[in-house]
């Protein structure tokens, strides 16, 4: 019995290896029980859920990669966009039709970013690539859209007096809200810019770690990581700017009045 899988992936654990890693769950449970944190049951449920979810996703991806082809993969990405739109839309309560705003914004971020990478042949247009890369892009676009919608919904309430002061000077709604829209967009981008700044210094990023574990040469692995970092930044920027513009236009009526939003 070996805990490492034999074959082409030198560092991938076998199922025996996965079983052995349950010892780590035992360690965690021991800590939370000993410290009387009342989290023992939650840890067990979380760990069981994780393995069930991952086995299901793994099996589904297996089918997707072998049978569904590119259309099936794009459908998968579209499904991820729908989930992302629900999550990000929920952050924008107070912005009318925020889920639709989020769906359009995330789609824009994904199409622009993934489209460019495929058209420029930076990545292969095959399911094994499109699905995981698409997942990363959707995740980044969702994160950016969530932050933008959250901040815009907040600003429409907290900065109401400033916005109305600008409207009262005869400024159109887009200009009256522009400083607040830019603040929201800046907040969304700053986290990702910081990540790009510190990449490799604070932690090794996911894509690169995965390639290293799969036995890829480090200088080859960083090529992928560079593309991933720039891709995530662009996904946040495109989704964020679309979300911010759509959301801010929905806060005003035809007479350039700030709607009474529900915070």
């Amino acid at each position, binding site marked *: 019995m070996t805990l490492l899988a034999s074959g082409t992936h030198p560092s991938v654990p076998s199922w025996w290896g996965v079983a052995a890693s349950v010892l780590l769950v035992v360690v965690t449970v021991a800590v939370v029980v000993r410290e009387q944190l009342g989290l023992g049951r939650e840890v067990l449920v979380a760990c069981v859920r994780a393995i069930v979810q991952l086995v299901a996703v793994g099996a589904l991806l297996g089918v997707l990669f072998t049978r569904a082809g590119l259309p099936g993969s794009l459908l998968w990405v579209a499904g991820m966009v729908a989930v992302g739109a629900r999550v990000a839309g929920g952050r924008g309560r107070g912005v009318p039709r925020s889920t639709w705003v989020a769906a359009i914004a995330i789609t824009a971020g994904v199409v622009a970013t993934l489209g460019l990478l495929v058209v420029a042949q930076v990545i292969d247009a095959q399911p094994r690539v499109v699905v995981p890369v698409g997942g990363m892009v959707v995740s980044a676009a969702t994160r950016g859209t969530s932050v933008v919608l959250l901040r815009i919904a907040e600003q429409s309430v907290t900065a109401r007096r400033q916005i109305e*002061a600008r409207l009262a*000077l005869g400024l159109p709604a887009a200009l009256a809200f522009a400083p607040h829209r830019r603040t929201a967009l800046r907040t969304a981008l700053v986290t990702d810019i910081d990540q790009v700044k510190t990449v490799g210094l604070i932690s090794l990023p996911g894509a690169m770690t995965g390639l290293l574990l799969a036995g890829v040469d480090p200088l080859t692995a960083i090529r992928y990581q560079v593309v991933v970092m720039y891709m995530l930044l662009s996904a946040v920027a495109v989704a964020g700017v679309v979300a911010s513009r759509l959301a801010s236009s929905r806060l005003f009526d035809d007479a350039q009045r700030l709607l009474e939003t529900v915070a």
Partner: protein
Amino acid sequence: MLVLEDVCVVRGTTTVLSDVSAVLATGRCTAIAGPSGAGKSTLLRLLDRLLEPTSGRVTFHGAPLPSYDVLELRRRVGLVQQAPVLLAEDVLADLRVGRPGLTPDEAAALLARAGLEGLPMDRETSSLSGGEAQRLCLARALAVGPEVLLLDEPTSALDAVAAQSVERVVRSLVADGLTAVLVSHDLRQARRLADDVVVLRGGRVVESGPASTSQYLAGAS
């Protein structure tokens, strides 16, 4: 001239204004007076379309407000809010929010008109006193060349000295021919500044006419 004709404003299940009719004459200062919650600020917000009446209509020089381009209307009917709202980091930038091409000379003239002669253009707005900040808001509203100035309790957030400085500016603007609509719960202030008065109570007009003969304002003495 701004005229309200049978204006009602209903928000949810609450009637904020009910069958309000009033004439706000050109070149005069009209005070909208009444106790808290009477609907004074709501009435003011109708006049530059920051709020729409549920029924009835508001006219400006005989034409209904929606017949005007709303951005042009708001340039002709300016608003100064209750507490000073500053929109930029320094004085000149704040004055330029509504009129980006404002020259420093024009800005200086506006500041003088608002009783802020000599205020440095690069002074940070965060360092201004309450009275200075409110007069800067007045100057900023004047920068876009309004015919009417709506003043929503412009001195309620200020101390007595700062309030007097703002009152002096309002008085001189009206003397120069500007139309002013002043919301105030301070009856003495309304008597000092207003030519006419519209008194609201529970969302209804209970008195309107010259301030000098107002029974409601007489209660201030």
